[in-house]
């Protein structure tokens, strides 16, 4: 199962996803998931280092799957974090697309 590191950015709390070159991306579609469990461990370590460097807070691994418009979280909690509140399409990342 591909996994991505998801966290909140320290300064503004915005949900971010670990992309290529250790960059934190605001859109889940731009994330760089790990395919193997070994790689997942590596990217989580990058996330934890970023937490120690005051970049993000609470990095965790989340399962993602490939959809028509790119990677998207499987679990409801992370899906809501990637999109926004389900009852208000005008809020969160879903409003910015």
């Amino acid at each position: 199962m591909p996994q991505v590191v998801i966290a909140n950015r320290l300064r503004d709390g915005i949900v971010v996803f670990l992309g290529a070159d250790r960059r934190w991306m605001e859109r889940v579609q731009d994330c760089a998931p790990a395919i193997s469990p070994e790689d997942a461990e590596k990217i989580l370590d990058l996330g934890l280092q970023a937490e120690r460097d005051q970049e993000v807070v609470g990095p965790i691994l989340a399962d993602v799957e490939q959809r028509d418009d790119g990677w998207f979280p499987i679990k409801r909690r992370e899906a809501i974090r990637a999109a926004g509140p389900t009852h208000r399409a005008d809020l969160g990342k879903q409003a910015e697309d």
Partner: protein
Amino acid sequence: MYRYDEYDREFVEQRAKQFARQVERRLAGELSEEQFLPLRLMNGLYLQLHAYMLRINVPYGCLNTTQLRKLAHIARVYDKGYGHWTTRQNMQFNWIKLDDMPEILLELASVEMHGIQSSGNCIRNITADEYAGVAADELEDPRVYCELLRQWSSLHPEFSFLPRKFKIAITGARHDRAAVLAHDIGLRLHENDSGESGFEVFVGGGLGRTPFVGKSIRDFVATRDILAYCEAVLRVYNQLGRRDNKFKARIKILVHEMGAAAFAELVEKEYEFIKDGALELAKEEVERIRMHFAPPAYESLPDVSPALESQKAEDTAFATWCKNQLAAHKQPGYAIVNISCTPIGKPPGDIACDQMEALADLADEFNFGELRVTHNQNLVFTDIRKQDLHALWQKLVPLGLSTPNHGLITDTICCPGLDYCALANARSIPLAEKISERFADQERQEEIGEIYLNLSGCINACGHHHVGHIGIVGVDKKNSELYQLMLGGSADENASLGKILGPGFDEDGIVNAVEKVVDTYLEIREEGEKFIDTYRRVGPGPFKENVYRAPA
């Protein structure tokens, strides 16, 4: 309402600056997230699913229009244009940036507001009857003591690192609108046989994963001794409350495990040492604070307003609103007005910045510049001349704030749930909206009558599901939301905890189940019998049978 003096003002400003310094240390890496967490929580700042969430205290629900306009300003400038009233009579913003916090706290301090102790393992915002000071059934105004307790509990040197959070509520009326039996300490003002006023003290109530109704540990504590008595309770709890398990750390577990009588004995022993000491309330200070809650300049009016009566006769929508939203005022010619922030099909307790500003204007025009927040996530105008009701209503209608559902099934208490909250297991707001739409028909709602429907997105019970007449709690089952139904809860002076009726439901299933519960009630109720009384008379049996009957 209470207004800050120079000391209170200085206190809040110092605290805002202190937090600015702590934010700086955090951003500079001098504080780890682990070290910073309790500091930001002590200032009301959580990290939720989408962003930081800031909880701002509205002390015992009292708000003036300057403050409401400031909340609107913060919603517009620092958030996404709306806020959310909570069950602790507070306001929450959901999209706050840590970078903005120092500025926001200074903005709040400028209108005598803050987020101090709106979270964390300390004494939280004191809550009270939303009709305090004006209710016809009130014995004494609890706000005086709320304010004294607020000051005593602010940055308490001994009680800022308690085993767990600590909630205090006070009622001064016969009918308990403050849910005091669901609090760590619940205080009920009453008079003893010699006409002296004091408090009955309940401890160990609370919801969450192990709910309890509070137990009375003392029938009477004279008002002047209430700080000393609370300090004794808190000291026993601080020393003996469990710290080995977060889920067993509330005072309710301590009281349950040792027994209320044994707990009371320890409190009495401690109280013996400290009563008549430095915490005894000085008359002058009590009177100084009481002055802040002096009634506004009421006009002397007849209790019946002929204008109102003819307006009601001419306008059925207005009459419906009056029938549901008004409560009896102690001053003739005035009414208490409930303003619903839970319109049909909308998130309970959410309010837009434009609505806040418009309400501030209305409160200035009609309500002496003040308003109240209720633990049911609605608002109250406490002092409306009956002759003004129609004019007020006409202005509420276009604002979307005239829903006449006070105490009806669509007047739901609902936590933010998985749409916002990092602790939630299931969504709650979309379900509240669906149930509300199912019961949207006003006539049907009124036919059903008083039902409190409370909804939480996890067992932590921020939506008070245990004390809803109908309670719903969401759980996560393999990435599907499952909702459990409980019946028979109540938060008033006859508080009881709801019992789970049977297996849970999916989102559509639970809406149908609620409807079946209501239909069963309508079928079997006796003349004039409220839902909760029917349930208490017949028990879960008939409800269970109808809800779980296989489709024919």
